[in-house]
């Protein structure tokens, strides 16, 4: 059994109570940071740790922070708690059961960029979680961990929650900023990047919940300790959300570099009814359908190895398909998802997701015309590299990989 850092609450009951969290070393990193470390020292330690963003892009966190100019003030930090990728349910567990470690991480990130206000953007469906988080923030203010002149130093910090209202696109960081500012969630053109012109047109860091939850470990135990976990280029542990046709779906915190095989067969206890595994989607609905070959199963789940299979590790929402699942039916699901969630700003995505879903409708309902499989692939290919943000790009990945790897599944639908 690997040691748990992010899901420590599974071993420590009541960790979502402030007193319990403090008893287990909570806010020691925070106190150490504010009283004896400079913001630059925090940033350096995080750079040394090699921590990479857990929201999907895998960008080095400390490097991201160092892009903020010290000539424009104030700075903001925004926690991205808009967890909406189909197959991802890790941040929800952290927010519900280990909220203080997440908040301590958010506070450390804020101190590192000298932000005095931080926002937590939660998807609208997490309204209960937001309410409880507001209570935790109030607890921290009462206990003197948040507020003015913390620990007698010239540093003040406030945290506010902001609730979305059901829009997958708001997980995209610039759409998220638009949403906080009281606009519809449509991504911005970049540059300027949020590090220069972010929230309220000011320098802003946006980090995922899981990324932030790693920070108290890194500042508390040191970068060297953190680097001892995971792989050389992907240090640390990661929460893998395992779902689909496995016997034991759930969140599993494992060192980066653990193989798919170990996740699926040791932790997930294998496939329902022990039938043959067919494909792996390592990054939720945004990922390719990777044929579950021996080689794929033995691939380490880290930021370097997974792309060799044809798609990114993303937020590590691993969806498993077995032989009972038809790839055409699955793509019918993903195209409808992206059609519904396309924000409508750029034409290739707005039109492309619509047309892809129309063609998958025809194929699934037995009304397919000759050449529809190739038409579907052609629409997807034409969208690639033309969309304003990753949503449109990602909508094409499952379509193309499914047709390339499981074309027979589509043809079977035509013969129906």
């Amino acid at each position, binding site marked *: 059994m690997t040691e748990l850092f992010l899901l420590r609450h599974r071993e420590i009951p009541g960790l979502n109570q402030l007193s319990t969290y403090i008893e287990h070393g909570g806010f020691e990193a925070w106190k150490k940071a504010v009283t004896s470390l400079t913001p630059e020292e925090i940033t350096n330690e995080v750079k040394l740790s090699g921590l990479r963003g857990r929201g999907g892009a895998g960008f080095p966190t400390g490097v991201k922070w160092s892009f903020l100019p010290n000539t424009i003030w104030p700075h903001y930090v925004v926690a991205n708690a808009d*967890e*909406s*990728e*189909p*197959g*991802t*349910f890790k*941040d*929800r567990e952290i927010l519900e059961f280990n909220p203080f470690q997440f908040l301590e991480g958010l506070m450390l990130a804020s101190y590192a960029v000298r932000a005095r206000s931080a926002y937590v953007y939660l*998807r*609208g*469906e997490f*309204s*209960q979680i937001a309410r409880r988080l507001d209570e935790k923030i109030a607890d921290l203010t009462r206990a003197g961990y948040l507020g003015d002149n913390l620990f007698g130093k010239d540093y003040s910090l406030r945290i*506010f929650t*902001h*609730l*979305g*209202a*059901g*829009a*997958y696109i708001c997980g995209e960081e610039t759409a998220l900023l638009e*949403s*906080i*500012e*009281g*606009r*519809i*969630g449509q991504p911005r053109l970049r540059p300027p990047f949020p590090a220069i012109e972010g929230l*309220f047109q000011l320098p802003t860091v946006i980090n995922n919940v899981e990324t932030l939850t790693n920070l108290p470990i890194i500042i508390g135990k040191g970068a060297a300790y953190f680097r001892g976990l995971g792989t050389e280029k992907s240090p640390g542990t990661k929460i893998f*959300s*395992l*779902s*689909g*046709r496995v016997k034991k*779906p*759930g*969140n599993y915190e494992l060192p980066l570099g653990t193989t798919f095989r170990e996740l699926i067969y040791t932790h997930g206890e294998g496939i329902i009814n022990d039938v043959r595994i067919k494909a792996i989607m390592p990054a*939720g*609905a945004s990922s390719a359908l990777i044929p579950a070959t021996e080689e794929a199963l033995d691939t380490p789940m880290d930021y370097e190895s997974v792309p060799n299979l044809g798609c990114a590790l993303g937020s590590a*929402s691993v*969806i498993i*398909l077995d032989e009972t*699942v038809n790839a055409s039916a*699955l793509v019918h*699901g*993903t195209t409808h*998802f992206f059609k*519904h*969630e396309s*924000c409508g700003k750029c034409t290739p995505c707005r039109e492309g997701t619509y047309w892809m879903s129309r063609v998958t409708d025809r194929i699934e309902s037995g009304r397919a015309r000759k050449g529809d499989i190739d038409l579907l692939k052609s629409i997807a290919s034409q969208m690639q590299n033309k969309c304003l943000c990753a949503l449109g790009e990602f909508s094409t990945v499952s379509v193309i990989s499914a047709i390339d790897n499981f074309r027979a599944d589509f043809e079977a639908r035509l013969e129906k």
Partner: protein
Amino acid sequence: MNQLLKKHPNEIESILARYPQDQKRAAIMPLLHLVQQNAGYISREAMSEVAEISDVDITEVASIVGFYTLFHDKQEGRIRVQVCTDIACEMRGAREYLLEVCREMGIKPGETTPDGLVTIEEVKCLAACDRAPMFQSQIGDEIEFHENQTARKTLDWLRSMMASMTVHKRAVKTADNGDGGSHD
């Protein structure tokens, strides 16, 4: 006079305090949540009140209500049952489950029962993929997750909720008759 401001002065003050003074429009979404929590949906009048408080045109507020799935501009069922049928849930029988619940309630996905109590709709991923089939209930702005469901379990829950609402309705009616006045 802005009725919303009159009704919730403290909540609105604390919402506005979360954002810089020159960024009032950031309060639009929290204000809409406040409206929906109390009225169950967002009327045109409410949109214009939110617009006034956040210092924007009503069309800006209307576009936000239209864009975000969880904001409703019509009164539908008092209980919204939102079933995730996204890929991970579908692989665990969510569609069959949805159809069975709908059949028992005598409506199709997206429809409301004739008594106006229940709307059942299909929604996208709710981050509970390991505990499918599942649904979230939305009553006003109160959202609750219900995981590891069977149609039977959901129907039992629904019927008990519906019964309590009918009883409540009757009680309010009696009170109305009693004091002869209407509630605010």
